[in-house]
C-alpha cells in the first residue's frame, strides 16, 4: 500500500492535472453527469411517488378494513368472486352487533356509475349509502359543512355529502352547502363537502357522494346489491385483531363450512401497495437501464482520457519512478485522478438535477396546478448525493484501472527516454 504522504501527493497531482486540463476534464465527465442526473431523478421520482401515495393512504385511513364480496387487489378468479353470495344488509348488521374489537362497523351500499344532476348539469359519479358512523372515519373529513347525523340517517333525510371531485366539477365557484343536488330525480340538500383524498391515479375516490342508507334504499333499492362493511380499527396495531374477529363472525353469519375458504374478502389500503410497487419497479427498471447506459458510455470516456493522460505524462512517470515511486504509488496516482474526475462529474450533475427537480415541481404545482404534487419535495435528498458520488467514484476506479495499471508497469528507462 502507498504511504499517506504518497496518497496526499497523488491527490495533489490529480487536482492539479484536472485543473490544468479543465475543459477537457469537464467534457470527459459528461457521461457521468448524465448518469448521475438520471440516478438522482429516478430516486426523487420514486420518493415523490411514495409521498403522494402515503398522503392518499393516510386520508383513506390506514386503520380501516373493508369487508367486501370483491377483492381490491384483484386477487382470485373473477368468476369465483362473481359466484360469491352477496353480503346482505342483514349480514352487515349482524356483524355490527357481534363485533367487539372495532371502533365502528359501517355498512355501505354503492352504486357505481350513478349520476347526479345540479340544475341542468349532470355528472356521473358513484353513490354511496352509509350510516352516520362513516362520519367518524378519516375519509369523511369535511372541507365545508358536516357529515349527516344519526337522526338524519334514521329518518332517511334527503341530505348528501359530496366528494371533492364532485364539488370542484359542479361548484367551481364554491358554496355548495345548502345547494340542491338531484339523485335519481330526487332532490337532496348538500350538507357537507369532503376534503380532497385521491391523488394522481386515485381520483375516483373523490368522485362520489354519500347519502343515508335509507335514502339510498329509496333512490336505488337494496335488491341485488352486495354491501361493503367498513371496519374502523382505531389504530394500525388493531388491524390484525379486528381482521381475525371479523373473519370469524362473518364465516359464522354466512355459514361457511369449516374447511371452506372465506366467501368474502377483507380489503385494506395495503392492497394498493401492490399496484404502486409495479409502478415503482417500472421507474426503477427504466431508470437503472438508462443510468447503466450513461455510466458505461461515461466510463469509456474516462478510460480513454486516462489513457491519454498516462501517455502525456510518460516522462513524468519515468521521473517519479527514477526517484523512488513504487508501482503502487503510480497506480494510486492515476486511480485517484480518475475517481476525482468522476466525483467532479457527480458534483456538476447535482445542481443540474436539482434545477430539473425544482423546475418540474414548479411546473406541476404552479403552472399546471396539480395539487397532489404539493406533497413532493422540491429538493433532492442528501442521501442521493452520497449514493451518486459513491457510485461515480467506483465507476472512476473501474474505468481508471487499466490505464493506471499501464502507467504503473511502465519501464522507468523507457519512460525517461520518452519525448513528446
Amino acid at each position, binding site marked *: 500500500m502507498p*504511504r*499517506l*504522504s*504518497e496518497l*496526499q*501527493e497523488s491527490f495533489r497531482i490529480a487536482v*492539479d492535472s484536472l485543473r*490544468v486540463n479543465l475543459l477537457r476534464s469537464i467534457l470527459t465527465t459528461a457521461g457521468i453527469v448524465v448518469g448521475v442526473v438520471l440516478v438522482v431523478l429516478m430516486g426523487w421520482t420514486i420518493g415523490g411517488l411514495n409521498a403522494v401515495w402515503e398522503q392518499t393512504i393516510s386520508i383513506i385511513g390506514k386503520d380501516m378494513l373493508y369487508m367486501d364480496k370483491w377483492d381490491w387487489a384483484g386477487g382470485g378468479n373473477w368468476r369465483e368472486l362473481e359466484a360469491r353470495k352477496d353480503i346482505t344488509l342483514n349480514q352487515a348488521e349482524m356483524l355490527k352487533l357481534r363485533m367487539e374489537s372495532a371502533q365502528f362497523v359501517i355498512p355501505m351500499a354503492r352504486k357505481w356509475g350513478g349520476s347526479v344532476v345540479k340544475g341542468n348539469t349532470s355528472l356521473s359519479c358513484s353513490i354511496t349509502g352509509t350510516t352516520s358512523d362513516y362520519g367518524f372515519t378519516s375519509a369523511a373529513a369535511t372541507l365545508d359543512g358536516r357529515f349527516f347525523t344519526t337522526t338524519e340517517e334514521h329518518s332517511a333525510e334527503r341530505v348528501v355529502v359530496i366528494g371533492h371531485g364532485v364539488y370542484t366539477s359542479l361548484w367551481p365557484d364554491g358554496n355548495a352547502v345548502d345547494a340542491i343536488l338531484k339523485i335519481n330525480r330526487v332532490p337532496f340538500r348538500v350538507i357537507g363537502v369532503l376534503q380532497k383524498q385521491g391523488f394522481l391515479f386515485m381520483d375516483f375516490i373523490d368522485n362520489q357522494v354519500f347519502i343515508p342508507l335509507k335514502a339510498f334504499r329509496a333512490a336505488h333499492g337494496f335488491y341485488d346489491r352486495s354491501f361493503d362493511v367498513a371496519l374502523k380499527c382505531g389504530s394500525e396495531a388493531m388491524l390484525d385483531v379486528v381482521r381475525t374477529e371479523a373473519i370469524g363472525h362473518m364465516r359464522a353469519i354466512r355459514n361457511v363450512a369449516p374447511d371452506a375458504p372465506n366467501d368474502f374478502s377483507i380489503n385494506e389500503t395495503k392492497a394498493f401497495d401492490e399496484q404502486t410497487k409495479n409502478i415503482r419497479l417500472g421507474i426503477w427498471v427504466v431508470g437503472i437501464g438508462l443510468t447503466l447506459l450513461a455510466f458505461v458510455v461515461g466510463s469509456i470516456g474516462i478510460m480513454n482520457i486516462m489513457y491519454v493522460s498516462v501517455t502525456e505524462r510518460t*516522462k*513524468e512517470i*519515468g*521521473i*517519479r*519512478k*527514477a*526517484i*523512488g*515511486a*513504487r*508501482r*503502487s*504509488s503510480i497506480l494510486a496516482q492515476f486511480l485517484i485522478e480518475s475517481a476525482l474526475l468522476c466525483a467532479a462529474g457527480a458534483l456538476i450533475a447535482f445542481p443540474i438535477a436539482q434545477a430539473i427537480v425544482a423546475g418540474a415541481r414548479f411546473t406541476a404545482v404552479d403552472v399546471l396546478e396539480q395539487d397532489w404534487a404539493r406533497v413532493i419535495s422540491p429538493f433532492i435528498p442528501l442521501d442521493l448525493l452520497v449514493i451518486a458520488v459513491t457510485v461515480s467514484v467506483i465507476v472512476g476506479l473501474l474505468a481508471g484501472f487499466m490505464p493506471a495499471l499501464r502507467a504503473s508497469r511502465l*519501464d*522507468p*528507462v523507457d519512460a*525517461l527516454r520518452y519525448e513528446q
Partner: protein
Amino acid sequence: MSKAIIDIEHLVKRYEMGDEEVYALRDVSLTIGDNEYVAIMGPSGSGKSTLMNILGCLDTPTSGKYLFNGANVAEMDDDDLASIRNREIGFVFQTFNLLPRATSLKNVELPLVYAGVSAEERTRRASEALARVQLADRMSHKPNELSGGQRQRVAIARAIVTAPCIILADEPTGNLDTKTGQDIMSLFSDLWKAGNTVILVTHEEDVAQHARRIIRLRDGKIESDTQNHHA
C-alpha cells in the same frame, strides 16, 4: 580502498532487437568504493548509458552479479529497486527532468514524499538541500522561471535530499554552456569533498577530468580504468 558500495562481476546486458541479439555490455566487472569520484566515459554505443541504468537500479542485467551495499540487485523486484533508487541513489540527468508544474521546493521534496517523510520534515530537508546548491532564494520558482544552470542545481538538490550512498549524474553539463557547466562541476567536487560518492557518465573529456578515477568503455567492455592525477 574503502568499503565497496558497488560490486559488479561479469555483467552482461543483452537486448533482443527483432531476430538480432545486441550486447550492450559484455562481461563488465567493476568495484566502486565509498567516497569515490568516478567518471564513466565512452563514445555513444559504448554501453555507458546501459551501465548507468543498471548502476542506478533502473534496469537489471541479463546475467552477472551486481551487489549494491552487499545486496544482490539482480534478485530484487520492482518495489525493492524503487526503494533503493529512492534512498540510496540520487540521479542527475542531462535534461534535468524536473516536474514542470512543481516549484523548486516541491521538486526537491518529491523523493521524500515517496520515502514517507512527514510534510514538515520534507520542507525542512528540501530547504536545506536547496541552500546547499545556493538556491535558497528560488524555492517557490517553477522550472520555467529558472535558468538551465539553476534547474540543474535544483536537480542536484533533489538528488542529495535523501542523503543517498551515490550520486549518479548522466551528462550533467550536456545542456549547459561552458561557464555554467563549470559551476555545476565544481558543485559535484564540493559534494565529493563533503563525503559523497559521485559517479559521472559523460563523453566529454574535460568534464571527466574533474573525477579522480576514469573508466573508459568501448563496445560494451571496460577499455581502461585509471586514477586521474590531474584533478
